[in-house]
């Protein structure tokens, strides 16, 4: 029993990372005023490139690098279209998702054909137990025997909170999303900061995608991201644009997913309903959020800003 609880909680922490990392990245983009709905696509790019490079070179870290590079390229294109060219943000994000999903499965088919068994990469990220802390009886096994990327992500929560409240760059970023005109009168290049926000969200999504395909699944399948990008997007809203609240929400979703995975073995509830649960919960979360005040929403979210310089 204790073992089941430990493995459930440990898996919760592991499953939280994709949601949390992507949502944190999207936080940077949204605070700067850009609705980056292409998260699903960027996670897919990250997952795909990471797996391909890992498979061919045997290095998971090179895969991470490749994933970040690919996502940055995609985000540059998306940012250019959305920020400077001014296309409608949500539908461009969806279009990018479609394009990237199609391209990924195409290039995967190009590389592997239709294999009988799923190709697995040989080396994945190593588990890194923290020396002293991992020996704590209960918490140690849950919290401190994880992958390096897990620690990084939770560290990033604190870093993001610090960034937005105490650093000059963070406050400028918030200003770009709240009142870009005022920011510009102070000499801020609003659109460049917005692009930076989008690029940061791409990097985080790349990390999340890499983690998904390398650490959790160690393979790449077509529908792998399974809507996590959209859930992360909703998490930003549910977390009221606050990194710590987003972490709480992400933990909830990680818990659900871990529960679903464990329940598949026991078959108490039909597992399809458990698989449904994260998505249904997202809708519930959005409903609950709509009753609270929306004052944390960046005022100029999704509105194109035309620089008058």
């Amino acid at each position, binding site marked *: 029993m204790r073992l089941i609880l430990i493995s459930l909680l440990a898996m919760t922490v592991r499953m939280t990372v994709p949601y949390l990392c992507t949502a944190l990245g999207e936080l940077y983009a949204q605070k700067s005023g850009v609705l980056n*709905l292409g998260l699903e696509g960027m996670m897919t790019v990250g997952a795909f490139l990471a797996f391909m490079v890992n498979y061919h070179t045997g290095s998971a870290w090179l895969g991470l690098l490749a994933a970040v590079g690919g996502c940055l390229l995609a985000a540059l294109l998306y940012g250019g*279209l959305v920020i400077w*060219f*001014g*296309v*409608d943000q*949500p*539908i*461009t994000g*969806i*279009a*990018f998702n*479609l*394009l*990237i*999903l*199609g*391209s990924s*499965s*195409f290039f995967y*088919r*190009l590389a592997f054909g239709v294999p009988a068994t799923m190709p697995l990469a040989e080396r994945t990220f190593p588990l890194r137990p923290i020396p002293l802390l991992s020996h704590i009886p209960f918490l140690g096994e849950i919290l401190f025997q994880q992958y390096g990327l897990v620690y990084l992500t939770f560290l990033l929560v604190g870093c993001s909170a610090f960034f937005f409240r105490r650093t000059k760059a963070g406050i400028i970023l918030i200003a770009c999303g709240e009142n870009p005109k005022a920011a510009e009168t102070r000499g801020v290049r609003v659109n460049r900061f917005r692009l930076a926000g989008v690029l940061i969200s791409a990097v985080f999504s790349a990390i999340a995608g890499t983690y998904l395909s390398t650490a959790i699944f160690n393979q790449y399948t077509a529908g792998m991201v*399974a*809507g996590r990008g*959209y*859930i992360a*997007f*909703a998490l930003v809203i549910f977390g009221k644009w606050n990194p710590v609240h987003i972490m709480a929400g992400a933990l909830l979703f990680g818990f659900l997913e871990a529960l679903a995975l464990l329940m598949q073995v026991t078959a108490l509830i*039909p597992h*399809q*309903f458990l*698989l*449904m649960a994260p*998505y*249904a919960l*997202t*809708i519930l979360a*959005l*409903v609950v959020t*709509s*009753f609270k005040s929306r004052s944390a929403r960046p005022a100029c979210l999704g509105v194109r800003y035309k620089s008058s*310089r």
Partner: protein
Amino acid sequence: MKWNFPYRFREDLSCPLAKRLALLGGVLVLCFGLHALIMLTMTDHPLAAYAVLFRSAFGNRYQISQTLLRTLPILLIGLGMSVCLKAGILNLGGNGCLLAGGLGAVFVGLYLTQLPPALAILLTVVLGMLFGALWSGVAALLRAKLNISEIYVTVMLNYVMLYFATFMLEVVWQDPMKLNWTAMISDNTKWPVLIPGTSIHLGFVLLILLFGVVCYLDRTPLGYEIRCFGLSPQATRFKLKEMDSQRLILFVMLFAGAAAGLAGACQVSGSQYRFSLQINRDFGFTGIVAAKLGGLNPVGIAAASLLLGALSSGATAMQVMTGVPDSIIDVLQGMLLVAAICADRLAMYRLEKTMGRETV
């Protein structure tokens, strides 16, 4: 920016049809060109691959009917989505509503086997549209009453319906002999084939009806208000006479849901005679691509859907004959959507001659 160049781009919100068509045509050529470049990685003759693609989409009678079969759900969903997009509502729930409609149709087909054919067929149509509309209605209510953006709600509902349909397939309606499909629906609920020798079934009549409805809707006061709402929800909020804005949102989303449900019923009762997850080849998103590519105009959407349907049905033959995998069509589809969006945006710019030195 200081420009000494005597021309500049200026935003101009009037988009004459000719300019939009020209831009769309240019963008299409660009897309196909880029796509051909991608195909160069796999084959030496991308143009020949295109030729194979289109010839096997329209070659003989059977192939044309296959193309039309692929076009049907795309066009149905595209028409429904165009009404939503005109209202400025991005309803991504096509996949979920299609599956819901399919579930409704297969329910009639599996259980109500004793009814006279006319009644049974009517029931499949009604239930298909009803289930699709209801599923879309959840998102519509959340948007209308609570102002929750329909974008994520519909995407989430897609996944919920996907897993629910998986549950119904694997637990309730599984056909032991054909894996992942339900049993075949009873004969009285199969839709009649209109042109013998092809697979053109009743669904095409319903498609023409829907086409007429959408064209007519555009010319009614309600259609006008939908368009106004799409251009500016704030401005129209108090001026609507036909419906208040909440009911308008409900209407367009239920309409799109019903159209998608109808597409699902077509797939089940008209074409496959069974239900499975494979009746939906991501038609929800393809419908949106068709709607955008067709410029939200019914005739344009019909042309775009035909193009997408041809691409889809010719791709398999292309794969067999030239070795280019058929998933390259997904890439093309994504490119077409991005291109259509950019073309729409480009249409809002106008090249204007300035007087020379401008320091704006």
